[in-house]
């Protein structure tokens, strides 16, 4: 049973407490404040709602996406457990305060924001998924799972605890990501900051998981010092793939038991020319050095450290837990200890 009452600037809906809901906000071009309240009502309060022009008196307002059936510039539909809000009104300082019960997870999908909006979420203990083009996201007292994707804007998340319910992923095209985690929580971080750096005061242990540890080895890329060793703990992760491309030198085909199978040089490779200069007149030594160099590069190739290809670093907090992927293509990552 859903009861609905509408006030001029406020809207209220009662939900059933017997099931879980998802609140989906689509194309709402306004600042948002979402927080949790006790009970089973959804409360939406609008501030700086643009005034209805006098000419519109007696007419029914339509939003871009449907009828404004809330009186606050939002179209609302409830189908099964999905509460869909979509917006039409835009305004310089338009802001919605949304209060939701504890059994509601959130999806915000507004990929066409044109100004830098502010999204504040507080106290949410269910899954939150946010896709926006521009905007700063601030989440406080959150448990996750959190899925965030922004084009431009910073993301600040303070976890009160880290839900182990499912993996999390925070991706910014351009912007800093700042995450605070209580130090006793369990998590496995996959981190990557393009054109930026990663900073932390958490005790994160870098991991070498299955895809790393199959070849725990030391290697040296110095052809003068031909001491290298590699030891395979596990099988080659990709059954048939043994041809690896080394951009600087060409491609090399390797087998974990037989070593170098085939080495195809790149014509005019600077590295190889340097090597040839070094071993001028000593053809045998040169050939050895060349092969050695290729081989050691091959075994230090990113394909062998597979996760390093998508992420700069993988590390565990308290022996690891739920996977949290954090990626910004242009910005810094800050991982902080929470206040105990």
């Amino acid at each position, binding site marked *: 049973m859903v009861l609905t009452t509408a006030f001029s600037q406020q809207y209220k809906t009662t939900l059933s407490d017997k099931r879980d809901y998802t609140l989906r906000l689509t194309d709402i071009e306004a600042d948002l404040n979402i927080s949790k309240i006790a009970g089973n009502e959804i409360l939406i309060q609008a501030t700086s709602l643009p005034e209805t022009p006098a000419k519109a008196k007696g007419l029914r307002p339509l939003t871009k996406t449907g009828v404004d059936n809330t009186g606050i510039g939002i179209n609302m539909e409830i189908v099964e457990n999905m509460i869909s809000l979509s917006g039409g009104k835009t305004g310089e300082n338009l802001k919605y305060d949304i209060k939701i019960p504890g059994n509601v997870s959130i999806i915000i*999908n507004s990929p066409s924001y044109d100004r830098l909006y502010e999204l504040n979420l507080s106290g949410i203990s269910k*899954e939150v998924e946010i896709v926006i083009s521009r905007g700063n996201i601030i989440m406080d007292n959150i448990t996750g799972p959190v*899925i965030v994707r922004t084009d431009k804007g910073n993301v600040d998340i303070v976890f009160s605890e880290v839900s182990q319910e499912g993996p999390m*992923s925070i*991706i910014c095209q351009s912007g800093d990501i700042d995450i605070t985690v209580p130090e006793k929580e369990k998590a496995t971080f996959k981190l990557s900051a393009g054109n930026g750096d990663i900073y932390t005061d958490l005790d994160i242990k870098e991991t070498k998981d299955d895809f790393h540890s199959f070849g725990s080895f030391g290697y040296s890329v110095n052809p003068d010092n031909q001491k290298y060793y590699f030891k395979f703990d596990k099988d080659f992760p990709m059954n048939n793939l043994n041809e690896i491309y080394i951009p600087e030198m060409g491609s090399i085909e390797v087998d974990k038991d037989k070593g170098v199978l085939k080495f195809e040089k790149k014509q005019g490779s600077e590295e190889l020319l340097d090597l040839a200069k070094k071993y001028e007149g000593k053809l045998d030594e040169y050939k050895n050095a060349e092969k050695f160099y290729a081989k050691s590069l091959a075994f230090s190739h990113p394909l062998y450290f*597979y996760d390093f290809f998508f992420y700069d670093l993988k590390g565990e907090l308290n022996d690891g837990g739920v*996977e949290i992927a954090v990626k910004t293509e242009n910005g810094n990552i800050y991982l902080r200890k929470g206040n105990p």
Partner: protein
Amino acid sequence: MNCKDYSELMIECFAGDINNNVLKKLMGHLDVCSDCRNEYQQLEEINKSFDLLPDLKLGSISDIYQNHDSVQELTEKRQRRGFKHISRKILIPAGVAASIILFLAGFLAGRIQKENNLKYQEIAALRSEVNETKNLMILSLLKQQSASKRIQAASYAEKLEDLQPEVMDALLQSLNTDQSTNVRLASLEALSKYTDNPFIRTELVKAFDQESDPVIQVNMINLMVLLNEKSSAQILQRLLDDDNTELIVKDQARKGLKTLL
């Protein structure tokens, strides 16, 4: 709901993706339907065995065989020791007894051998069943409304030994059409582990050609360069020439082209 629906519910249930009401419904059905109850118990066992999976490597199987060898050796040793201290008087009855013992020993050894074979078969069957279930689970998770669950599916797929064609297709579809970039990136990660498969490789190049999300584009460029996928060079060139391409993508494409050609 029929039994088939409940069967799907069970998988969701083990994926931890079921709310209390539906769970109650499922439990109610299990009380009345013995077939489904059996299936549920089997799934429960398989689910438990997930944790054991790394221990079921060949090593532990050969351990079983080693134990079996030592049992045989032990029986032989006992028999040899036994003959030394026996006087002639009882040699004939002893001979009879010995043959009985030998027969019994042989019988026992045979049984152990058989049991071991069975064990081996059971383990192999269990492993393939687990693999099958995991594949099913991935398919089910990929359909979930929760983005986190869909990422979970991709990370399961990443760790599988054997990717079934349906799962491959589902992952490719997720990479191409999922609403969430986060999920799509996770699917790309999973698929890139299987790039020794020519089909996936071709599909990834196709996906790269269609891609418009800058974050995915950057990661795809990196992957194409690592795989030395020369057929992607013209896509890189197109991205470079296109005025609408994001700056970070252009930078990466420029670097990529330099190394690819």
